[in-house]
C-alpha cells in the first residue's frame, strides 16, 4: 500500500502505523535468535564456554552467512567491528576460514571422544 513500509512475508509484523504505542508485536524467531545468541550479557557460567563458543559460532554463521556475502556484494561492511566477525575483518575469505577452523575443531573433538571410548 504505502511505499517504503515493509512487513515480513510471514505476516508476523503489522505495519507499525497500527498500534505501535499499544502492546508488543509478536517477535519473529530470527530476531529472537539473533538477540539471545549474540546479544545479552556475557558472563561465563560454570559450563565451559570455550567449547560452547564453537557451537554458537556455527549457528551464528548459519544465521547470517548468506546475507554477509550478499551484503559484501552491495558494499556494506558496518558490522565488521562485531567481535564475532573480528577474524574476517582483514579479508573477504575469513568466513570460510572460520568454517574450516570450526570443522577442524569438531573433527578433533570427535577423534578425542571416540579415542576415549575405544580405550
Amino acid at each position, binding site marked *: 500500500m504505502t511505499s517504503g513500509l515493509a512487513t515480513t512475508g510471514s505476516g508476523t509484523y503489522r505495519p507499525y502505523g497500527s498500534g*505501535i504505542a499499544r502492546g508488543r508485536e509478536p517477535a519473529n524467531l530470527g530476531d529472537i535468535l539473533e538477540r539471545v545468541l549474540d546479544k545479552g*550479557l556475557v558472563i561465563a557460567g560454570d559450563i565451559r564456554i570455550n567449547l560452547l563458543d564453537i557451537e554458537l559460532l556455527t549457528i551464528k554463521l548459519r544465521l547470517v552467512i548468506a546475507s554477509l556475502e550478499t551484503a559484501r556484494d552491495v558494499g556494506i561492511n558496518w558490522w565488521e567491528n562485531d567481535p564475532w566477525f573480528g577474524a574476517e575483518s582483514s579479508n573477504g575469505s575469513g568466513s570460510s576460514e572460520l568454517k574450516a577452523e570450526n570443522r577442524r575443531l569438531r573433527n578433533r573433538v570427535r577423534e578425542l571422544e571416540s579415542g576415549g571410548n575405544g580405550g
Partner: protein
Amino acid sequence: VAEPAGVWLYAITEGIPATGLSRLVGVGGMPVRAITSAGLAAIASNVGLDEFGEEALRVNLDDMTWLEATATAHHRVIDAMSRAQPVVPMRLATVYSGDTKVHAMLGQRGDDLREVLSRISARQEWGVKAYAAGVLAVGLGASAGGPGRGLAGSGAEYLRRRREELVASKQARQEVLVSAERVHQALSRLASASRLHPPQAPVLAGTRATMILNAAYLLDEARHRQFSETVQQLAAQHPAVQLQLTGPWPPYSFASLEKDGHAEDGQ
C-alpha cells in the same frame, strides 16, 4: 539441602522482582525463581544437566527445533520481566552449577551489573531494519546470472546491455546505501545509544528482499512515539529502502559490560 544440577540464568534485576515469577514457564518447562544477593536478583530456573549440561548443549544447540523452543522460552521470561522493571538479559546458555556460584557472581560483578541497569533504566530497545526496495535484487541477479544472455543478438549487443545493467545496478546500490545511512543517522539522534548488527539472511528474515540495515536503538520511554513517527517519515522520504520497526525489546543489544561504542548523546 541438595544443590540443583544446574542453574540457568535469564536476566539480572535490581531488588526483588516485581513480576509474579510463579506465572512464568522457563526453558525445558521449568519454573522460574529469583536468586537474590547484594541487592540484585538473578532470574533463574533449575535445569537438568542431561539436557542443559555442557555435553548436551553442544548437541542441542545444533538442533533447530530444540534451539527454537529454548530460545523462545528464554526470551519470554526476559520479555515478561522487562515489562515491570529494568532487566539485564543474559546470553542464551548461561548455566551455573548451583546457587552458591550465582551468589558469588552477583557479589563479584555487582557494580558492573548496577551500572548496566542504570544505563537501561526507563529505556527500551527498538529494532529498525531497512531492505532494498526491489531494484537492488534485480541488479544483483543480473550481475550474477546474466539473465538476458540468451536473447542477445550478438556479443557486442550483450556487452552493451551488460554495461547498462551494471551502471543501473551501481546507481541503485548507491541510492540504497545512502538512504540506509541517512535513516540510521536520523534515528540515532533520537536514541541514547545505537548498535549496528549484521544484516540477517533472507531465509531468517522471512523475506526475499536484501537486508541493508539491521540496527538497534535504546530509547527513553518518552521518545517511543516520536521515534515511530520519525520512522514513518523516513520511509516516505527514502523510497529506495523499505523500513521495518520491531519492538519494544528487552535491552539485549545494550546489555554489554563494555563501555566502548556507546553514543551517549545526552539529549
